[in-house]
């Protein structure tokens, strides 16, 4: 049996009196892609943030056995810094040896502007590409993507799925949330969340 790269055991999260995610178990094994679907407020972003270590669980445990890249739903970068400066800063914070080189490669890979222009002035699509690019710093084996293709044109969406497929091919794992049911074709498993609980984990159940 393949050991999981990320494992959540009865992980739950409350915000005050609101239960954003009920105790949930999930494993991400090498080579697989898991799609999270469900209405707004179902708990998809909370689950991804808990798996990424960006949120502390109220209960349960998240075990991480590989480098994890996280694409939050809302682009998270310093708007006064340029795309390159953001990439270099987070690369240095992650301990990437040649931060400048890593930034250059990601700028080229995602066709991001190299001009020293504040990233807050970039188009919505460019900001989302920067958001994805930041998650690939440190060459993660696991990617957690929260609606990664929102605001991207078809060409850029294809580029994101190319990244996902390449990672899976190299033995990595991907978990993504989406509101676009067509995108679940990129997944091996689909988890349907509603009111903070996984209500279905079957492709057939979802698509009849």
């Amino acid at each position, binding site marked *: 049996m393949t050991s999981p790269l990320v494992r959540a055991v009865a992980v739950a999260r409350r915000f005050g009196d609101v239960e954003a995610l009920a105790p949930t178990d999930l494993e991400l094994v090498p080579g697989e892609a898991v799609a999270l679907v469900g209405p707004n407020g179902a708990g998809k972003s909370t689950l991804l*943030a808990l798996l990424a270590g*960006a949120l502390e669980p109220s209960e349960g445990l998240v075990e991480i056995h590989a480098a*994890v890249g996280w694409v939050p739903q*809302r682009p*998270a*970068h*310093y708007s*006064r810094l340029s795309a390159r400066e953001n990439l270099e800063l987070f690369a240095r914070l992650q301990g990437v040896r040649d931060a400048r080189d890593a930034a250059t490669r990601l700028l080229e890979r995602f066709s991001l502007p190299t001009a020293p222009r504040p990233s807050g002035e970039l188009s919505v699509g460019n900001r989302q590409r920067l958001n994805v690019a930041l998650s690939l710093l440190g060459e993660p084996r696991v990617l957690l993507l929260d609606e990664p293709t929102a605001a991207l044109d078809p060409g850029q969406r294809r580029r994101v799925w190319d990244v996902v497929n390449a990672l899976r091919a190299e033995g990595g794992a991907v978990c993504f949330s989406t509101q676009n049911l067509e995108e679940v074709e990129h997944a091996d498993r689909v988890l349907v969340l509603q009111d903070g609980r996984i209500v279905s984990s079957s492709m057939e159940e979802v698509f009849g």
Partner: protein
Amino acid sequence: MLLRKDLTVLRRSPLLLGALLAYPIVIALLVGLVAGYASAKPRVAFVDEEGLPPVVSVGGHRFHIQNVIDAVAKEVTLVRLSPREAGRQLASGKVVATITVPPGFLDELGTTVKSPHLVLRTVSGGLAPRVTQQVQSLVYQLNRKLQAGFIAANLEYVRLILHGGDASFIGRKFEVLGLDHMEQQLDALPQNQRVAKIRTFVRIARLALAQTGRALHATANPIELTQPKTKGRTWVLSAQVQSYGIALTVTFLALLLAAGAVAAEHDEGTIGRLRRGLVSLGQLVWSKVALAAVVGLALGAAIALVFGVVVEAGGVSGGEPWPRLPLLLVGVALAAGVVGAAGTMLGALAREARTASLLAVLVVLPVVFLGLVPRGALPVAYWVSEFLPFAHAVKWFGAALYDTSPWRTVGIETAWLLGIGAVLGALARLSVRRLAT
């Protein structure tokens, strides 16, 4: 790395950077103006109802009235006005006080046995205590000048008693025999025991009266104040104002900057990325504390420099901060860091930049006002301010700039600031933890 990022972000915020650059200049200019105002001579009306002649003679000494007034009135500008005009200008605030020489002043002065009166009227509040002190000083200086005349007049009477001659007293003329001539008169009398006793008294009286001059000088000045010139530092209003100016600026900006930086980090979502094992909570708090300290240091230095230049240009004494600038800047960095910890806490509690800015402004004003309350005025406010950084920053800066030996105060206030900083830092860490998770 985070500090460098924060400074880059700050540099890229033109409006904020402009305000940061302009703020110290404006504050320093205001402080300089206040210092200049504090050192300016207030206008005082001089009302001469007596019609003083240019030259007055007291006890045989001649005084040029205006010269005497000019010589002693160093702290006020005296302007000669009519009684009516003086009253009008006092009411409108154009003069802060009036000094009136009432009719009969010279006659009383000329007797040398009765003290004439000057009448002082001041506005209430404001500069009144200061003007009263200055006029008291003026009258004291005048009295000292007049003493010489009075003593000379008194010694003239002693000379008459000793040597005899023509004299006048309260307008009446008479001839005095004098002790010298009295002894000659005694020689002409038949010598007996009673005459011998009188002769002995006359000799003792002559010896005693010979010492009268020194005795009169000593009586006039039982205690003389001498002030040796030392290289000590001075404490003037301008120095206090400068300390408050720097403390106010540092408190205001460090609080706002740190609060805004943390809240902006949350607004942009980057705090979530940082918390994924890239940066600890402690490092996050420290980066904001360091940002506040660095910017506070730069602003404090700018204010101190501009203030120094303004003060030098204005010729205000007691406000020369140059030799103590390095010590001052250590205190500025420390105080800014402590306030930065408070700002970090507020920013984390507010969660978004606009609320954080508003909260910081709302908090900074009472903190500053509490720090301005004197101990005797409202003890509760004083003790509350003791647990806030502003009051300690003011004491630190004041001691660093103007105390001859600042080390004790600097040590005590450093301990206070470090203690308050430790508590605020711990609270900031808790708040950021709540914000990040």
